[in-house]
């Protein structure tokens, strides 16, 4: 197997007393597409958010491209903490793109300006080149003709596609999707999933939290089921979704299928 693009080792995260992630070990090879399933509150979002350091892990470590992030610091009691400097996290976030459930487009900018923003402000790309690149990304998600629209004028599906283009413009090595279609009306889910599938076909590496089991089955190369802040079951889509071994996975899938056709 190729050297992992991303690896988490014993990743833990607590909010005060509440331990949400209890030691997650996951290795992501280049080109892998991992679907993350789990009940509400099981820690799926927290896990994704630890990978681009929107949340700082309480313990454990993250390796990106073979390099361990952060620096060690001795605690008074002799234990060791990892500390993360803001400049390093800023660089990591450029390499790990994120797409949010609520899109979080910048409402004061047009679709085009949204996509250009990271190029201009973070990468310092000159306006003409940034514009060209942003237009190409908008075209890729099928929104070239909406470039001058403000987010308020776009449908939910269009907003999410702009958000995907915005993330892609930064050339991320890894893409994180946190329930990208959960805030959408059912008839708009397809257009967003279509874009994500086309990215999968390009061989991009991605982690996707989703409740769309069918999509996970067809697009993911691996599925992991998180329960109580741990990876409870992991395997190919066929193994986890069709032949789950563990009881909680089976129960979760049964609940999801209860009302399907």
């Amino acid at each position, binding site marked *: 197997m190729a050297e992992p693009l991303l690896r988490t080792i014993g990743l833990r995260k607590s909010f005060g007393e509440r331990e949400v992630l209890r030691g997650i070990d996951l290795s992501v090879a280049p080109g892998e597409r991992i679907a993350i399933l789990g009940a509400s509150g099981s820690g799926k979002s927290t896990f994704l958010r630890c990978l681009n350091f929107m949340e700082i892990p309480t313990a454990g470590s993250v390796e990106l491209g073979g390099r361990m992030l952060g620096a060690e610091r001795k605690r008074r009691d002799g234990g060791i903490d990892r500390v993360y400097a803001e400049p390093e996290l800023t660089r990591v976030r450029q390499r790990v793109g994120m797409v949010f459930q609520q899109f979080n487009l910048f409402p004061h900018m047009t679709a085009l300006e949204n996509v250009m*923003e*990271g190029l201009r402000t*973070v990468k310092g790309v000159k306006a003409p080149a940034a514009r060209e690149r942003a237009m190409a990304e908008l075209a890729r998600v099928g929104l070239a003709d909406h470039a001058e629209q403000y987010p308020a004028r776009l449908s939910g599906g269009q907003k999410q596609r702009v958000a995907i283009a915005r993330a892609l413009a930064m050339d991320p090595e890894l893409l994180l999707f946190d329930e990208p279609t959960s805030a959408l009306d059912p008839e708009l889910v397809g257009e967003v999933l279509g874009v994500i599938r086309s990215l999968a076909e390009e061989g991009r590496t991605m982690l996707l939290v989703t409740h769309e089991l069918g999509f996970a089955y067809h697009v993911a190369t691996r599925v992991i089921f998180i329960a109580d802040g741990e990876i409870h079951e992991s395997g190919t889509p066929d193994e986890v979704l069709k032949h789950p071994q563990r009881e909680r996975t089976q129960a979760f899938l049964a609940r999801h299928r209860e009302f399907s056709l």
Partner: protein
Amino acid sequence: MYRWDFLPVLANADLLLQGLVNTLAVTGTALAFGIPLGLALALARLSGRRWLAWPAGFVIEFFRTTPPLVQLFWFFFALPVLIRVEMTPFMAAALTFSIQSAAFFAEVFRGGIVSIERGQWEAARALGMTPPQSMRRIILPQAVKRMIPAFMERAIELMKTTTLVATVSYADLLFQANEIAQKTFRPLEVFTVAAGIYFTVILLFSLMARQLERRLAVSGESTVH
């Protein structure tokens, strides 16, 4: 029945006009310094660094809770004793109202900044923006737009508060009106006209602000690149 006679006021129109110019000069100076200083105070208070947040908070609260007249007297009568500078009425007025309005604008800025959804910060950070970049490019432009009504409110309040400068013999609109009233024995007419001038100027400003708000709303949301 009182017989109105505006002719004496008209004869002194140049004095009133000069008063208006002086009022606008103090208000304009206070805005020009107060807004950037207010932003700086707000950012310091929100910085999360105690050595910045605490002094900023103190300045803000101090100038919001002490009467403006006391501040004006302090800058005009007390400060020159301390640092031995000649304080003109204009300097004292400009200094007082710059800092005082900065304290109020700081709270307006802070309110606008904290009203922006967390998701906006997250989207900016997720692109790799530093906190200052996120503030400048994403948060502030949206916050300022939301602040326009509160901001206008403060600016109007400021213009009205500047009437206090008459107490240190700065020849603002109210001071001039008072002079004319004593000279002509026509206080009713003079102060009616003075009130009318304040009303007109402030109304014009509000209409302009309303217009600006509407423009920003129509274009979706536009910021200049």
